[in-house]
């Protein structure tokens, strides 16, 4: 036998860590979604799609502003010392991914606002003519528009990576401590964003293009997950034990049924059929993709907290 008993029973710590709840999962999902939206917007701007008045690149930044604000609200709700949140903005701790993230979020806002200003909805423009003037000035400089597109893509990319790095930087939690997590969360964010734009786009060609792009993201996600398993199962014992929560452990059903089955493979089959004109475009696939992305964050946030170095010895 090899048994460990201890007399500690600290709230949120024992019998296993459970400090982070739905707030962090929702924040990571919305952060990834906005990151994907920014990358798609930037791509649309850089490829000159702004000439198409139906382009979703005008709508996405507005939705993105709402989504990132909701995400930050969730993050704020998670803080235990809420009145001290401003302390994050009195310092920059370069070794802390959370500090990078806090400042990164401040960079996301102006870029989303400037992107939203590229085209003001007519009703809002009529009420606030000043906004129309700013929009006209912005559109008058092609370099500025292209720069905004590039800035949107770069910032979105960094934001998407950050949502994964935030967790993977915790070496104490072997399930999170994977060098594949940032790319998994970034790809999942891109996939959810493509699904969202696919869902709301008014342009048929755009919907078709995003369904194709989403298929590519979903296939990439499968490959990344396979590589993550290969990496973990060939790593030291604590990593092997950590990933076993998905291989017969307590999160097996959530992972394989809800994330892989209903969140990736099923919508991929539907979208493959629709882009090949076998069936009509349906809202079901993008909805499932987004739900899968949300469940992915929930499962990783909860399963990661349950994983620990000691599980390599004490099962």
């Amino acid at each position, binding site marked *: *036998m*090899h*048994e*460990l*008993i*201890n*007399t*500690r*029973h*600290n*709230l*949120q*710590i*024992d019998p296993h*860590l459970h*400090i*982070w709840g739905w707030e962090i999962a929702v924040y990571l999902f919305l952060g990834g979604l906005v990151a994907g939206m920014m990358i798609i917007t930037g791509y649309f701007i850089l490829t000159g799609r702004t000439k198409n008045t139906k382009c979703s690149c005008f709508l996405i930044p507005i939705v993105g502003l709402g989504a990132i604000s909701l995400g930050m609200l969730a993050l704020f709700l*998670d*803080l*235990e*010392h*809420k009145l*001290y*949140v401003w*302390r*994050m903005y*009195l*310092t920059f*701790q370069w*070794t*802390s*991914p*959370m*500090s990078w*993230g*806090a400042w990164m979020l401040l960079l996301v806002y102006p870029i989303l606002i400037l992107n939203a200003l590229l085209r003001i909805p007519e009703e809002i423009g009529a009420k606030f003519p000043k906004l129309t003037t700013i929009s006209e000035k912005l559109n008058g400089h092609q370099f500025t528009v292209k720069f905004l597109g590039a800035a949107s893509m770069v910032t979105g990319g960094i934001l998407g990576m950050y949502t994964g790095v935030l967790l993977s*930087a*915790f*070496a*104490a*939690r072997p399930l999170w401590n994977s060098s594949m997590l940032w790319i998994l969360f970034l790809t999942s964010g891109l996939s959810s964003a493509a699904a969202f734009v696919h869902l709301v786009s008014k342009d048929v060609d755009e919907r078709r293009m995003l369904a194709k792009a989403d298929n590519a993201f979903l296939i990439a996600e499968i490959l990344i997950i396979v590589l993550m398993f290969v990496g973990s199962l060939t790593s*030291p014992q604590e990593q092997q034990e950590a990933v076993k929560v998905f291989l017969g452990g307590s999160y097996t059903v959530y992972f394989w049924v809800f994330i892989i089955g209903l969140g990736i493979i099923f919508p991929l089959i539907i979208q493959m059929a629709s882009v090949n004109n076998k069936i009509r475009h349906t809202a079901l696939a993008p909805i499932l993709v987004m739900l899968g992305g949300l469940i992915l964050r929930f499962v990783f946030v909860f399963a990661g*907290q349950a994983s*620990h*170095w*000691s599980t390599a010895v004490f099962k």
Partner: protein
Amino acid sequence: MARYGMVIDTKKCVGCMDCVVACKTENNVPEGYNRDWISYETIGKFPKIHQEIRSERCNHCDNPPCVYCCPCGASHISDTGGIVLVHEDKCSGCKACIAACPYNARYIHPEGYASKCTFCIHRVEKGELPACVSVCPTYCMHFGDLDDPQSEVSKLLDSRKFHALLPEAGTKPQIYYLV
């Protein structure tokens, strides 16, 4: 600069929990929380069985992930002997430090900030021992400067076999257990 650490003799510790009670009293640790605790690790097969009893707490690591991940700069390494501390009035309660600690030594104080063992720095700065060390009835706990070769802790580490907790986590813990 001194480097404070602890050396705990597992051959003498009986798990009486005096150190736990002393810490709670000295530091007003709220009900339901512990800054230190007792672990019983049992290895072997009857009748060849071995049990190690340990008094555990924050390891005041030399490479502390809790400090590196803090977005507010609240978790820090003190100038007093490299003790790892938390500025309560800088902490936003984000709990990153708790996730980063492989020893699960931190918790959120009911007032919202991260809290943990301080090696009783308020006593150490007055030349006293941490409360847990001062009350140990079997004298199994020793506190001192690990950088001073003449200190009691350094001499014990020179003369006895010892281990630290989860050295493979790379945090360079500064609490050593004599075996």
